[in-house]
């Protein structure tokens, strides 16, 4: 009987994951006929949801109505603190990565984002991605990021109550830049040091499965088992599957 318990948990996790993924699909289907928009990586300062373009400058969130795509119309500005770096829209919230924390805005009214909270952490450079109830934030030390800081890390933040984010896990990283999440996989770009594949079957505790040291990685896009990675070596594409291995597709080298 005892041997069966871990299996039972795994099964439950799998069912949970399926439910989660289904929920996401349903959500995206809800919005009806929506414009075709693309997807960026976690390092992006630009993000589009439906007919709104969000831009984070170094100190503000600029909102543009793009119903008429050729003529963006300024809809709102939200002044933020200093050192704003990235924006990641997820469902009805905007997650904004800053040097000293993560801002969460609700954009249920796309042209009028409402400030919910600021999750403060040590000074660092920190893109963020979100899946389900967890946000994954990389904190990178460096000359301009975490002066005199200790070490880089990957933090897991429970955002199920977006007004009260709580850190539930943290682990050491080398020099993390962009990251991407899909299903039970989390990918972390470690700059010139390479590219990590992590398992997040337990979303609170990512476990490193692979470290591809020959793929310099700055930003990544993950979609449908497809990986697009850029870095100092050029642009790399891979497929991956549940066996934690990746298949090389192509490379556009840097010349």
């Amino acid at each position: 009987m005892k041997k069966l318990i871990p299996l039972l948990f795994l099964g439950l996790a799998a069912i949970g994951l399926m439910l989660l993924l289904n929920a996401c699909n349903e959500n995206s289907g809800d919005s009806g006929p929506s414009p075709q928009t693309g997807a960026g990586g976690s390092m992006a300062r630009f993000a589009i949801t439906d007919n709104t373009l969000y831009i984070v400058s170094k100190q503000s969130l600029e909102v543009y109505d793009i119903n008429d795509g050729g003529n963006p119309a300024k809809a709102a500005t939200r002044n933020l603190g200093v050192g704003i770096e990235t924006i990641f829209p997820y469902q009805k919230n905007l997650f904004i990565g800053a040097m000293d924390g993560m801002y969460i805005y609700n954009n249920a009214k796309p042209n009028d984002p409402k400030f919910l909270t600021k999750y403060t952490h040590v000074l660092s450079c920190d893109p963020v991605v979100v899946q389900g109830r967890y946000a994954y934030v990389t904190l990178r030390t460096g000359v301009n990021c975490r002066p005199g800081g200790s070490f880089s890390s990957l933090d897991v933040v429970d955002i199920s109550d977006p007004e009260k984010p709580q850190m539930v896990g943290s682990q050491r990283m080398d020099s993390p830049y962009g990251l991407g999440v899909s299903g039970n996989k989390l990918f972390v770009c470690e700059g010139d040091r390479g590219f990590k594949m992590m398992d997040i079957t337990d979303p609170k505790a990512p476990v490193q499965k692979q470290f591809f040291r020959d793929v310099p990685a700055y930003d990544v896009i993950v979609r449908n088992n497809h990986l697009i990675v850029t870095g100092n070596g050029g642009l790399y594409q891979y497929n991956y599957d549940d066996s934690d291995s990746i298949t090389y597709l192509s490379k556009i080298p840097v010349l």
Partner: protein
Amino acid sequence: MQRLHATLCLKRKSILTAAMKRTLLASCLALLMLSCFHREPDPFVGNEKFNGTGYRPVYKSPDEIAKVEVQAAQALKKPGKIYTFDRYLFVNELGKGIHIIDNTDPKKPENLSFISILGNYDIAVKDNWLYADNLSNLLVIDIADPRAPKFTKTIPNAIPGYNYPPLTGIYFECADPKKGIVVDWEKVEMEKQPNCYR
């Protein structure tokens, strides 16, 4: 500055009585704190001494900045952020522009064209419209034909920026708006300590 206070304090030390020493030490400390305080009230204020190198602004005229050119496909040199849309990939060339790549077959991506945009780092696409930053300007580009993108519109001053280098603990020449718009900062040897620090 601090170095100066410190040496002054040291030199006088020998000829002072213990009581005076204490007062002086306190005032030295106060001065030290003041000297920090008077710098830019930025969380990253460092205590670097000027070491003969500093950052100098690179200026361009508004006309040069506004020049957007669609060119033949170019090799990647310093790729930055990526953006996917439909079967296309958009790859930023740090500070230089955007590569448009046909990714219908990810095993054989085809580099289609390059849009040269000064100060570009970001990309987003909706339908046939591509949005890109051009320093503080927001550009709208029609990519209905991704082999021949058409530059459509500039929204000036859409993205507020800073007039200082993206570094801390450094000295730099203060930006002079009369000379043009700062597009970059170069590290150079300087005889005199420049007036700006962060």
